[in-house]
């Protein structure tokens, strides 16, 4: 009996449980290398995603004022680190990105270099230039418009933004092809304000109409027009005596800074020859802006050589967005904007009077806000022959 109990007791002595895991955890200290020219006040708040490649989870954190960040209790493994940072200044959005893969099998101290790029806070969302046809079969182009969109998650101010039309209709070689750092325009219309008077909410737009009326209902309109522009934010109004342009009392007028071939109204080329850009021309006041314009006049002799016509060159650095609209595929060889402003081109294939427009593609929906695609290539960025949908974002 005693022996049996002894044997049984010895057996139970061998019975033991497994110990709790002996696991490793490490510390990772990262420094973001912003480069020497990066403004010191913008260094904090860069988002860092610390992504475990094996288990597909990420730890998210932001840098301190020195651009440093520390992760504690990191499990061993392979990680990718993505740094993203952005801020807006002078009408442009500056983006910085960095990517690095690291192995964590001990404490890690490392730095990540980031590279910057910029894009406009405003983009041209939609251009309707083809016009429509009246019940009588006549062309109708007073319903043309151009829509500018705030593509950022922050409020941006549109006053002081100018709409430009290139000098050429791209029916022949660009006369200014050797001017690499500027574009030459024949029309400059500017949104009035002191720079803080026309806020545009994130994911919203500002609509610039040729005539700010409901073109389908108004007696001066066209019942077959596809648009109601009564809610436009500004309109192109050409002041003449006697008055020849329709002036909608509910819609503020754009400031006419330049209109070389001054007709009774601003009319975009209905077949598609007008290439548009938006720009922030230097000058905090109308006078300063006009001073810049007057200092940048360039002349071009007429075909007969009997007289010169003056246009304005706008430096590329002031251009926020540009869309190379051409008449057709065959006219793309006469492209006017340099690749750094628009590497592609686009057009309404169904032609004038079709009631169709070009509209920028949606890149993503970020927290319920539409973000339009902006790769500086209108061939890729724009949808062709779509129905005009001013101030509709979907």
């Amino acid at each position, binding site marked *: 009996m005693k022996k049996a109990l002894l044997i049984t007791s010895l057996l*139970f002595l061998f019975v033991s449980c497994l110990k709790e*895991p002996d696991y490793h955890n490490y510390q990772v200290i990262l420094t973001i290398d912003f480069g020497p020219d990066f403004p010191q006040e913008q260094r904090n708040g860069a988002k860092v995603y610390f992504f475990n490649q*094996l*288990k*597909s989870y990420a730890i998210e954190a932001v840098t301190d004022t020195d651009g440093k960040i520390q992760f504690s209790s990191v499990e*061993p493994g392979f990680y990718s680190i993505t740094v993203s940072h952005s801020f807006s200044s002078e009408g442009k959005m500056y983006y910085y990105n960095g990517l690095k893969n690291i192995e964590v099998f001990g404490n890690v101290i490392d730095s990540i270099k980031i590279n910057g790029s910029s894009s406009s806070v405003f983009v041209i969302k939609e251009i309707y230039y083809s016009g429509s046809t009246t019940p009588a079969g006549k062309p109708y182009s007073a319903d043309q418009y151009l829509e500018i969109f705030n593509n950022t998650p922050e409020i941006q101010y549109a006053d002081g933004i100018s709409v430009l039309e290139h000098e050429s209709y791209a029916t022949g070689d660009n006369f200014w092809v050797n001017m690499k750092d500027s574009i030459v325009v024949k029309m400059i219309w500017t949104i009035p304000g002191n720079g803080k008077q026309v806020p545009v909410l994130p994911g919203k737009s500002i609509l610039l109409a040729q005539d700010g009326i409901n073109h389908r209902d108004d007696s001066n309109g066209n019942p077959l027009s596809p648009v109601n522009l009564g809610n436009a934010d500004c309109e192109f109004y050409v002041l003449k005596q006697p008055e020849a342009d329709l002036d909608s009392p509910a819609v503020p007028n754009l400031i006419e800074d330049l209109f070389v071939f001054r007709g009774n109204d601003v009319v975009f080329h209905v077949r598609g020859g007008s290439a548009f850009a938006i720009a922030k021309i230097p000058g905090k006041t109308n006078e300063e802006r006009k001073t810049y314009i007057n200092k940048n006049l360039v002349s071009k002799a007429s075909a007969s050589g009997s007289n010169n016509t003056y246009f304005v060159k706008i430096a590329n650095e002031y251009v926020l967005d540009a869309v190379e609209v051409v008449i057709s595929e065959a006219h793309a060889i006469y492209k006017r904007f340099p690749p750094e402003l628009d590497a592609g081109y686009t057009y309404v294939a169904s032609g004038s009077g079709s009631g169709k427009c070009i509209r920028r593609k949606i890149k993503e929906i970020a927290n319920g806000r539409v973000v339009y695609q902006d790769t500086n290539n209108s061939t890729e960025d724009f949808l062709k022959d779509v129905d005009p949908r001013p101030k509709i974002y979907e």
Partner: protein
Amino acid sequence: MNKSFAAILLFQICLIASAADPDVVKPANLLTFKLIEAGSPWLKSGNAAGLSQMLHLFPAELKLGFSLNDGDFHSVFKGKSDQSFDFGSQSFRKINKTYLYGSFNYSKSYEKGLNFSNTNDPVMNYPYLLTDTIGNDTYDREFFKLTGIISSPVNSQLDLGLSFDYKVGTASQNRDPRPENKVLQTTVSPGLLYKSGRFKLGANLAYGYYNEDIDISVVQENAQHTMFQIHGPGVFSYHASSSFYRSYQRHRFGGGMQFEWMSGNVSNLLHSDYSYSVQTIDDGRRGSNATWAAVKNDSRLDGIDWNLTDVISIDQGEKVHQLKAVLQIRNRLGTEFIQRLEKVNATDLERWITYGEEQKYYSLQTNAALNYQLMVKDESNLMKSLFNADLKYSAFGEKYYLPNSDQNFSNLMLATSFLKLFTLPVASFSAEMKFSYQFNLDGQQNLTNANFIVKKIFRPEFIYQTESYLSPGISLAYQVPLKKTFDKYFVKTDFDWYHSASGLNSILFSFSTGLIF
């Protein structure tokens, strides 16, 4: 091995065992197997040599069965319903001084409304499950199981025994992503029993092997599905592909000791068994393609299982009292492999290179139970009635380290049942009433992540595991004697109803019919 061939082979072996003439023939009825189970504590000791200590009853049966488990109250890893069609046979025999037991079972089942499982038996107390999120699947299973035990005396004091079981089968789904699971499970256990006067001392060794190969395919062209490889509570990695291979392999080594003391009509059997297991979970794939040419080691699970049981029996002739105390401990330690797919040598072949192994998972399950059993027998030593009362405690805790997550809970169950045999002029009839009630003692779930795997799997499963429920049940059986080869014909039906505190219900219904001889 060809499934049909294996089935025929196993069935033949079982019939051979059944057909051998016993040297002792005693009348058997539909409660005889239950009587053997209730009155032979050695049969549950794990020592095959203990078969010689069974009651001297040697019945055999052939039966066909159907069972249905249906309802909303179930584990998140289980389907809404599970229908099973079974054919089985079992037999106890004694030839000369050698005791034999053999059983064979074939099962065909359909588990429907399954949402989160690509492993055949996901409720196995291990974290490394494989799942997709395409719901409403059906698992079609076909399994064969063969069990054999032999116990033979070496001399008047020493018995030698050997037991084995072998289970093989497949499980498959017929909707993308569609896994085909091939499962093989076997156990071999030799044992010794030494008898000396009022004492009996036994010892046994055991080896178990489990293998499950999962081959997941996607039939739809150019379609990929995401497979989630779970590592612990709320922790997973995933892989999108049109195919996926996974292999689970487990080896279990262990043994047990038994000690019985008898004095007059009182006996006490103390037995304990202890086993260590190691399970590896491997994925066969390269970057995106399924291939066993490149094996990615996912994880390893070390386990310890310890059972301690003490059974006190008081045999008063017509009445047998039995008090049983059970303690079970299940302990698991999970290790993950940190690997990266890299090109090796000049061949440009890609291999998973191991950079480290990390122990990340720990779980401990403790079960304790106290059971009182009163069996009343008639003058032929056959069971007239059986009363059972149980008190069961279970506790489970698991932890995952970095990101830290843990969950634990404990439950208490009260269960009772009463079975009575009614003898009619020609036939016999038995009725059993059952009732159990489980309530939660405590539970805590602290998960770092709030991902959808947590929302879809870990949170609902925790709620299920900690849900209080009650379950009444009834079992009815009827037997009539036969005049020729077979002794008795019986039909039996069981019905159990599970009703949770939150109002969810499920039922378990089974029906079987067969022959006793």
